[in-house]
Structure formats: C-alpha cells, structure tokens
C-alpha cells in the first residue's frame, strides 16, 4: 500500500469580517494536534493553512513513547501502533566496524513502545480526519495569514485565499506556522540560536531492502567516506536515509535525482545488495537550534517549530511540538470555560521553555559530535569512536542522537501500567486525561472529580501501577488533563484534593 496525499478544497472567504474564539495558524503536525486536543475539550477552532495538503515527504518520522501516549489520549494511538514500524535497537558503525549498539529496552507493561517510525504525512492525514469527526474544527485550506495586529483582545488577522482576502478576528491565536513562522516575523520577535555549518541530504527511498528494523548510524562509512549516514525503516517499504554532505556541498547539485541515486546505489552496493529502488522525496537540510525568548505574547501563543527549532538527530522537533500542544490545550480550554484565570497560560511558558532548552541542549550536543567544528573536536570524536569498539566505557559517549524523552522538570507524565478491568486487560493511561483524574490505591477518594481506584474499579494485577505511581494503600495522585502528576494526597483527604485541583488551575504551587 502506498500513501496518496489528499487534496483539500480551498476554503472560500467569508463575506466581510469574521470572528473566532480560537484560531490556529498552521495546519501542520503541531497545529492539527492542538486543534484535535482543543476540540476534544469542547472548544471550537478555526485552522488556517496556506497549503491544501499534508506534509510533503516523511519529515518527522520517529514518534516517541510520550507522543504516542498523547495520540492515545486523542484516540489515534492504535493507528500509530498498527501502521508504524516499532523499533528498539540502534547500531552505530565507525568505518567498516560496529562501534556500539543500544537497546532502548522498553520495560514491560506499557501500551506504547519506545518509538514507532511513521511518515509525518500519515500522522497529519489521520489528524485531519479526527479533527473533522469532532465537528468542532473548521479547516480552512489555502488560507494564508498575511498580516497580523496583536491586540489586547486578540489578534486581527489578514487572510489571503485564492478567492480574495478577508479579515479574521481571533480572541486567541495559536501560532503553529512552522520554523519560518510568518506571525513571529510579522510581530518582530527574535528567534535566536545556532546554525550548524553543515548540510544533510534527506531521502525517502522505496525498496525491499534486507536491513533489519533498527536505527543504523554510520560514522565515516566506506560508501560515504568522511561523513555520516543515518538509516531508518518506515512503513510501506520506504526507507529514510540521511547523508551528511558538509558545508561546501552545493544544494542544487546534490538534489539531482541521478546524484542521489548514485549515493544510494553505492550504499547498497557496499553491502553486496543491489535491490532496485525508487526515490520518493529528496530534501537538503541545514540544522538550526534556536528558540523564541517567550512563547506567549498576550493572546498569541507560539507552539512547535514556530517557537523552537532543533536539529533532527534525536527526533525532538516533532515530538517536542506535540508535547507543547499537550501542555497548552487543556489550559486554554480551562481559561475559555472560565474555570481558570488567564495567568494559567503563563505556566505554558514556564513549563515548555525549559523543555525546549533541554531539547536544544541535547540536539546541539549530538550535532557537535556528528559535525566536529575544529580539529580538536574531530580528534575527540574519532578517539571516542575508536575506543568504543574495544572499551565499554566509551560507548555511552558516542552521540549519534539522544532520543526524545519527555521533559520532567515541571512534573512528570504519569507512567502507564497494565490493569485488569472486569478481568480484561486494560491500561492506566486509557482512563486518564480528558479532565483532571484522581488515581488512588485501595481507598475510593472523596472527590467530585473523575477517579479510578486500584483494587476497586481496576485490578492492579502486576502491582506496576501502584509501584510506578508510588501509591501505598490509601494514597492518591491528582493527574492533570495532560496526564502529568499535579499532586500527591491521601485519598480520604477531600479538602486536600480540592485544594490541589484549585492550585493546578490557578497555577499556584
């Protein structure tokens, strides 16, 4: 089976002035995730996208466990599991030899694996379907934001469409318009950081290759001397290959299909493999690590690549953006419903800026290892790789990407665990997340909030739920709608639970 990109009909401009409570500018991976999340919280949203289809090329392919749990919460988890390629094993080669291999060792008892590989276009196509099914998301294709005025009561947007322009007033604007964000530039907001003087060729190759379902990374392989190469398996016999080219490479020349074919043929030939292959997508990429100083600007809030950009080794771009949406949407829904003050949204900045910094730090370190910037840096890199072959201590120093993990500095997401309900296998995280939820052990909590009690509604047959949440008999945790642990309280302490719930909505510690 192969993916056929959908073509969506352009949305015709409404007459005169238009108004919406929430507008999301950009229907990419993160904007669509935010739209679905808000809709599931009962909020109506308008999504503006300048294009009429989903992502071109595979782009963000490695979906990490926490992101899969978020898509589980949004009702799409099983689609990722069924279609995506699950992998745990990674191998790093140096020259002709294997230097290091790692197993992301997913511990038992989680619904989702460490990673599945899936082309970004599948994720976006499913998000579009799911958004439409809610009946609360209006997707306005080929509607580009071409002007913005940020006001105290929202944003006035000038929108262009094939049938002419219109003005749209948004009470709240989520800017999800990608790394080159028009909105960020139009508001004159800085986007500072580091550009790496290197270029990478990224290709989606269709072939029936004999590589295992593992992440393979080569430093200085015989088929691409002096540079690195990364290989990932995707569904539909599509393989993603990233060739490091160096700064001097000519992007126009390197994108010529014949030249790319020669590189792929050389790679396969060096393994004595000459399977036929087709090129599906080619792109040249320069890495950047940078972020905005603040993500919230009054009633305009930036998410995803518009707010922060990382180099792809570590799969932190797409995953980080989805986790932005996870953090923001319940808060905005609570503010819109009058359940929380506007100040709750400041906690989005407080929680996601350090998360972006952690992603940038990790991806900068990986890029520094992969692309040494000086003779000394190259000497250290090669020293580590040479030592790694024979000496275990050097293997964890090898850095071909530190793979995305959730940020835990602002409360950690509740770990999943297997449960039995009426004797049938079930999962903890499936029953948390549409609103605040209390999870208790043994004692039914005295609360008006939705609650699940281990040993009552659910059998914690493996003991993993209580162990992972640290719940002794009579203990409880309050989970936020994004499944993060907000507080630990005694299940019997009704006033304590109510206070913790209030504190979470009012963003007081």
């Amino acid at each position: 089976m192969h993916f056929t990109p959908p073509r969506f009909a352009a949305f015709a401009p409404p007459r005169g002035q238009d108004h919406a409570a929430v507008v999301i500018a950009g229907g990419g991976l993160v904007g669509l995730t935010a739209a679905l999340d808000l809709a599931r919280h009962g909020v109506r949203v308008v999504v503006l996208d300048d294009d009429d289809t989903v992502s071109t090329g595979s782009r963000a392919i490695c979906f990490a466990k926490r992101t899969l749990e978020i898509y589980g919460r949004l009702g799409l988890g099983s689609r990722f599991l069924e279609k995506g390629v699950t992998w745990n094993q990674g191998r790093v080669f140096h020259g002709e030899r294997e230097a290091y291999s790692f197993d992301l060792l997913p511990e038992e008892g989680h619904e989702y694996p460490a990673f599945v590989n899936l082309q970004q276009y599948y994720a976006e196509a499913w998000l579009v379907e799911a958004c439409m099914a809610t009946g609360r998301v209006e997707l306005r294709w080929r509607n580009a934001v071409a002007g913005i005025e940020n006001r105290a009561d929202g944003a006035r947007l000038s929108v262009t469409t094939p049938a002419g322009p219109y003005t749209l007033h948004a009470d709240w604007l989520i800017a999800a318009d990608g790394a080159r964000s028009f909105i960020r530039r139009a508001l004159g907001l800085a986007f500072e950081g580091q550009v790496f003087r290197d270029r990478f060729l990224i290709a989606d190759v269709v072939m029936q290759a004999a590589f295992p379902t593992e992440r393979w990374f080569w430093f200085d392989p015989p088929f691409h001397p002096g540079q690195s190469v990364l290989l990932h398996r995707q569904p539909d016999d599509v393989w993603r290959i990233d060739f490091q080219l160096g700064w001097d490479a000519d992007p126009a020349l390197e994108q010529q299909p014949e030249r790319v074919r020669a590189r792929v043929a050389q790679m396969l030939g060096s393994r004595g493999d000459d399977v036929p292959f087709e090129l599906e997508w080619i792109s040249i990429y320069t890495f950047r690590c940078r972020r905005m100083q603040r993500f919230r600007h009054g009633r305009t809030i930036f998410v995803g690549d518009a707010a922060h950009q990382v180099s792809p080794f570590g799969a932190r771009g797409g995953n980080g953006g989805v986790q932005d949406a996870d953090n923001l949407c319940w808060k905005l829904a609570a503010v819109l419903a009058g359940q929380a003050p506007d100040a709750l949204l400041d906690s989005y900045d407080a929680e996601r800026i350090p998360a972006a910094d952690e992603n940038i730090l990790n991806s900068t370190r990986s890029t520094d290892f992969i692309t040494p910037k000086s003779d000394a840096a190259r000497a250290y890199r090669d020293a580590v790789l040479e030592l790694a072959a024979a000496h275990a201590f050097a293997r964890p120093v090898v850095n071909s990407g530190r793979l995305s993990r959730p940020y835990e500095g602002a409360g950690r997401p509740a770990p999943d665990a297997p449960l039995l309900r009426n004797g049938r296998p079930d999962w903890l995280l499936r029953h948390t997340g549409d609103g605040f939820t209390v999870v208790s052990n043994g004692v039914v909590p005295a609360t008006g909030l939705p609650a699940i009690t281990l040993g009552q509604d659910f059998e914690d047959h493996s003991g993993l739920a209580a162990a992972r949440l640290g719940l002794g008999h009579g203990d409880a945790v309050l989970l936020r709608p994004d499944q993060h642990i907000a507080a630990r309280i005694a299940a019997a302490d009704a006033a304590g639970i109510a206070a913790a719930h209030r504190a979470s909505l009012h963003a007081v510690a």
Partner: protein
Amino acid sequence: MTHLLTAPRLAEPDVLYAALMDAHRDLPPDESRKLDAKLVLLLANHIGELAPVLQAIALAKPPPRA
C-alpha cells in the same frame, strides 16, 4: 566531592614524561591529537568522577586575555 590534587604524587615523573614523548614520537599532528584525546577519555573514566575532571579543565584552559 573529590578535589583535584595538584601536589606532587608521582614517584617517577620522568618516566611518565618519557612515556608520553615516546607515544607521540613520529606521529602526524592529527594522530597526536587523537592520542591525547584518548588519554584524557581513558583517564577521566578511570577517575570516575566529573568534579576533579572539570577542575582540571578549568586549570588547563589558557588564562582569559586582558
């Protein structure tokens, strides 16, 4: 936390120095550099603690120019 020790501790400093010179003899500059890098990595792992290594890095850096 272990402190970096900078008082003399080696019984035969000349032997250490000679071994380093021998190791580098006839090596082209990039190989020399890689050798030193391997030494640093091996010894840092042997020490097994970041604090004294970070202190050593701070000591080894050229003084900031005025």
